[in-house]
Every structure is written in C-alpha cells, then in structure tokens.
C-alpha cells in the first residue's frame, strides 16, 4: 500500500513517515505543496495525507486541483484549526477524512486503514472466528471453545469491531465512535472499563488471551499463536 504524506513541518513529517513505514506502508513524504501535487499527479497512491497549512499552496488548493484533474485518491486532511467551517470546506472539496492536530498517531493509522478498507466490498459475513472464539452475527451468539458467552448488545458490537479489525491497534476514540457513536473525547475511562469487562467474559477463563492492551495507544485483538 502506497501513501503520500504532504507535511511541511520536518519533525512531524519524519515521524509520520517512520510510523507509517513501520506499520507496513510504502511512504513518500513531500515537504511542500508543489512537490506534493506533482507526486500525486504523476504516481499512484492509495491514500494521500495532506496538511492544510503549507508554505506555498495550501492543502485545499491541492485537493481541488487533484479532483478537477479527475484524481480520486482518498485524502485525509491534517489541520491545526478545528472549526466547523474548515471541516465542511474540506469535505465539500472532496476530502475523505479529517484530523485535527494534535492527533494521536494510532488514530491516523486507524483512519488510513478504514479508508483503505472502504474500497473493498465486504461480503456479508455470517460468522467471525478468531482462534477458538466464534461470533454468529445474525443470531448474535458468541462461543469460545464451544462454551456459550452472554454479551450485552454493546459488548457484542465491541467484540465484533475488534475481530473485524484484528491485529489493528484501535485507539479509544475510534472505539467510542464506532461502538457508541460518541465522537468526542470523554474525560472518563469508560472505554477501558468496557474493554476490561469484555475481557472478563471472553479472556479471563482461558489461557490464550485475545484482547491486548497496547500501552499509550489503545487495544487490539490478535491471535498471537498464529
């Protein structure tokens, strides 16, 4: 998967490149708007990460020119300004997502992955399986090692999210947004408590743990025996 990062701030650009490279992407980093635009027009990328405030031409103009030239590569905006008009402007111009600085790196990663996933038509899956954990989606039944586990509706959704995105670190903000539709930072540790309670039901009694805490970033579900 190829990513283009257009970010003029050296430190930020470097670390985003490093982080994304280590996450398994092929990353091209451009530190000004013109070079970024040139790269986007001449090479093929799967996602473009575009800073709004650039020294030469701003991100909006780059996006506008790209879309006018028929380039439909998904674009994530990075901006230091969090105002509704900015957001609306970006989305109207055809941006696919939007992150306000300072953002958590893991959140950027999650957004990129969900953009990449968006293109693939997901076949209707009736059963999700990780190790000996089985989710029956239509009947909302969960079993582990053949043993039935009772989950509340939200716990089920949470587990489903983890399994659908297994191996991926999910930051708390993404979990809150996907499972509870809460799109703001809560002052509380609700997500930690909810994950702990889910773990108590699906992990505690079993030797092999599936849900893992990634300190400082979030949680992921992974079958580490594979």
């Amino acid at each position: 998967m190829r990513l283009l990062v257009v970010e003029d701030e050296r430190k930020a650009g470097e670390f985003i490149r490093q982080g994304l490279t280590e996450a398994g992407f092929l990353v091209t980093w451009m530190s000004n708007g013109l070079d970024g635009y040139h790269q986007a027009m001449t090479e093929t990328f799967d996602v473009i990460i575009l800073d709004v405030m650039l020294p030469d031409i701003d991100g909006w103009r780059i996006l506008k020119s790209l879309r006018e030239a028929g380039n439909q590569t998904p674009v994530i905006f990075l901006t230091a300004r969090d105002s509704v008009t900015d957001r609306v402007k970006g989305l109207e111009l055809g941006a696919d997502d939007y992150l306000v600085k300072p953002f958590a790196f893991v959140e950027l990663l999650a957004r990129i992955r969900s953009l990449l996933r968006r293109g693939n038509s997901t076949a209707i899956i009736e059963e999700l399986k990780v190790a000996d954990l089985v989710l029956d989606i239509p009947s909302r039944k969960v079993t582990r090692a053949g043993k039935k586990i009772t989950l509340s509706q939200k716990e089920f959704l949470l587990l489903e999210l983890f399994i659908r995105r297994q191996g991926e670190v999910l930051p708390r903000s993404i979990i809150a947004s996907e499972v509870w539709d809460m799109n703001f930072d809560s002052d509380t540790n609700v997500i930690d408590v909810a994950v702990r309670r889910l773990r108590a039901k699906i992990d505690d009694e079993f030797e092999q743990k599936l849900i893992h805490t990634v300190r400082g970033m979030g949680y992921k579900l992974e079958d580490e025996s594979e």
Partner: protein
Amino acid sequence: MNKQKKGMPISLTLRVMSFAGFAILACLLLSGFFVIKSVEQHFIEQDYDELKIIIETVEQRLDSINGNVSQAPDVLSQAISGHHGVYFQVETPPGTHLFHSKGAEFFSEITHPQPANRIDKSNLVSWKIDSEIYRGLVVDFTVEGIPYRVMAAMDMAFHLSFLEKFKEKMWLIMLVIGIATLTATWFGIYQGHRPLIQLSRRIRNIQTNQLDERIAPNSLPIELRELALSFNQMLQHLEDGFERLSNFSADIAHELRTPLTNLITQTQVGLTQARPIEQYKELLYSNLEEQERLAKMVSDMLWLAQSDNKLIQPASTLIDLSSEIKDLFEFFDALAAESQITLTLEGEAPAIPADRELLKRALSNLLSNAIRHTPYGEKITVKIGQNKNHNVYVEIINPGEQIPAEHLSKLFDRFYRVDPSRNRLSEGTGLGLAITKSIIETHDGRITVESNNARTTFTVYLPLVM
C-alpha cells in the same frame, strides 16, 4: 451606525433652549396680544361713553324744543360745550342737514352712514376721512313725530398715537424679558449639567486596576442616580469578567506547568544514565500520558475560546432527548456498573432543536461528573420534562456529599476544583463543566446547580425553539 448617517445628534442644551425659547416667545406674544387688545377695548369703552353722552344730550335738547325745528340750531350749539375733539351733526329728516357742531364739516363726506335705532356699543363705526380717523355712532330716532338722525364722531388720533407708543415700549420690554429668560435658561442648563460633567470625569478616571471603584448614587441628583446604578452594575460585570480572565490565565499557567514539569523532570532523570530498554519504554509511556493530557487541555481551551468568540455555531436538528440519554446510559453502562451505580431516566419531553454532537458532549460531561461523585451502589436519576416557560429541562440528580454553597457558583468556571488537592488525573482537564455550560448557552439555554446534604442536582434548560 444609522445615527451617523443622520448627522450629529442635537445637543441637549440646544434641545432645551429651543423648547424654552419657543415657549417664552409664545407666552410673550400671547400676553402682548391680550394687553394691546384690552387697552384697545378700554379706549372703545371710553369713546362709546363719550358718544353716548353726546347723542343723549342732543336727544334731550331736541326734546326741549317741542317740535319747533327752527329752534334746534340754537339749543344744539350749546350741547357739547366742555367736550373736546367731539363732533356731531343732526339731520331731519335723515339725509337732510339741520345742524353740525363746529369743525364737523367732514360729515358731509360720509355717504353710507349705516344708521342704528338705538345707542349700542355694537353699532360703533369708524370713518377715515382725509388723513383723520374717527370713531362714530349714527342713531335715528323720532321726537314729537319728527324723525331725526344724529351722527356723532370723535377724533382717534390721540388714542392711536398713544397706542403706537405703548406698543413700541411693550415689545421692547418683552424682548428684554425674553433675552433675560433665555440667558437664565441657558445658565440653568449649564448648571444642571455640571453633575453630569463631574460624573463623566469620575468615570473617565477609572483605570482597569480600579474596577472595584463605585459611584455613590446618593452624591448625585436624583435624575443621575439610575445612570450611576447602571454604571456601577456594568463595572461589577467588568470586574467579575476581568477577575475571571486573570484567574483563568493564572490557572492555565498553573495547569500547564504541572505536566510540563513532570515531562522535563522524568525525561532528564531518564537521560542521566544508560538504562535497560524497558525503562526507556516506561519513560516514553509516562511522557505520552502527560502529553495527551496537554493536548486535550489545549483543544478544550481552544474550543472554549472559539465558543467565547461565537465561532461555534450549533447545527439545528430535532433531538429526541430520551433516546439520546438512553444512548449515553449505554455508553456509561460499564463505568456505572463498576461502582454498582444504576442509571434511570424519568419523564418525557418534546423533541428540541439542537446540535446533536454538542448536546451529547454536554450531557456526557454532566453524567460522567455525576458518576464520579456518586457513592458505590447508589442511583443516578435523570429527569426530563417541559416547564411552563416552554423550556425543556433535564435534571441530573446524583446522591452524594453536599457541594458547599460557596463553590456552587464557581463550579462552571474554568479549572475550578472544589477540592484543590484532588488528584488531577482523575478529574479530567477541569474544563468539562465550563464546556458544558458553554454548549448549553450556545443553544440559548441555561444550566443551574443545587446541592443539599443528600443530593446534587444539575438542571439544564433548553428552549423549544432555538
């Protein structure tokens, strides 16, 4: 800005002066008019009396001759001795000259004498003959079967010249009176404005470090007391706002200093010697925690600054409060269950126009706050409903320790903590309630809090129409 287009507003002095001037002018003109009228009336009365006496005397004399017309000139020639400037003519039959007094030749020039049958003030006439003006009375009567006409007149020149002089003097006096009164009015206005000028001088001298200054209303005339009270109130608002602002700046500095100190100290200590990789990891995690707090604080403060500057414009969609609150209950379900706290919703409310995300954020702050302060195993109640003032209310009631009254009003202040020593990590950024209040206010609503020894209640009022 409209006023600018219409030019300068009229000065107060000019306003009062023009009204007073107008009133004085009207008074003087009116009184002058009546004085002249009554003097004229007085002269008419005088003239009438004189003419009446003459005609009556003529009638008596004619009576005394017993119809012997040839004797008439003799008796009539004596009739007006002792009267000056008075003339008469007798005709019999009317139209035929019989006798006229000395100097009364001018009667022959009167072509339409307009005779009357009796002596009456309303029958007075005036004649202008050559350059002389006369006031006269013409009466027809019969004595011993003989019809007579008596025409009496008197010269008005004397009266007229007196009246002219009188008028001249009177208008002059009135002009002087008018000018004097206007000057006095102007002086009065100037004097009257002195307290205003003094007040303005005192107001001008108030500096930002003297916002505790107040103007004593009792030292001012009654008309200015209202102004002084309003001004004092404005000062009070300014002082409060100013104090809040400077406290806020101090608080920001303090709130930022703590995590920054932690970051610097732990990083420096970490770098003092070579360590196993695990310890570096630990250090980075610890740094990350502080950094995330800082980031959250900065975005919360930015949000509040935008809200203060009216940059947050809530979208308006119809919101069903009870379903939003149920969603929030589901979100907080795990957290509440940890402390065996039950969340219940009571009542019903009509849908209200609001920004869904913002409202959820506001209510979520209140709920997480309630959960934080509710003892183990107790129950949090959320009541919704509609009150008489067409407001929808949401009451969030949690049992727990009483919040002392002195803290209640400051609870929504930024970074305000009831207990300063409370662990800052468990309390969030200290901006939650400030953000909640701000959100409610951008929706034209308001939020109140009360607390007794059994429970604390936050009440949000939201208008049915935004």
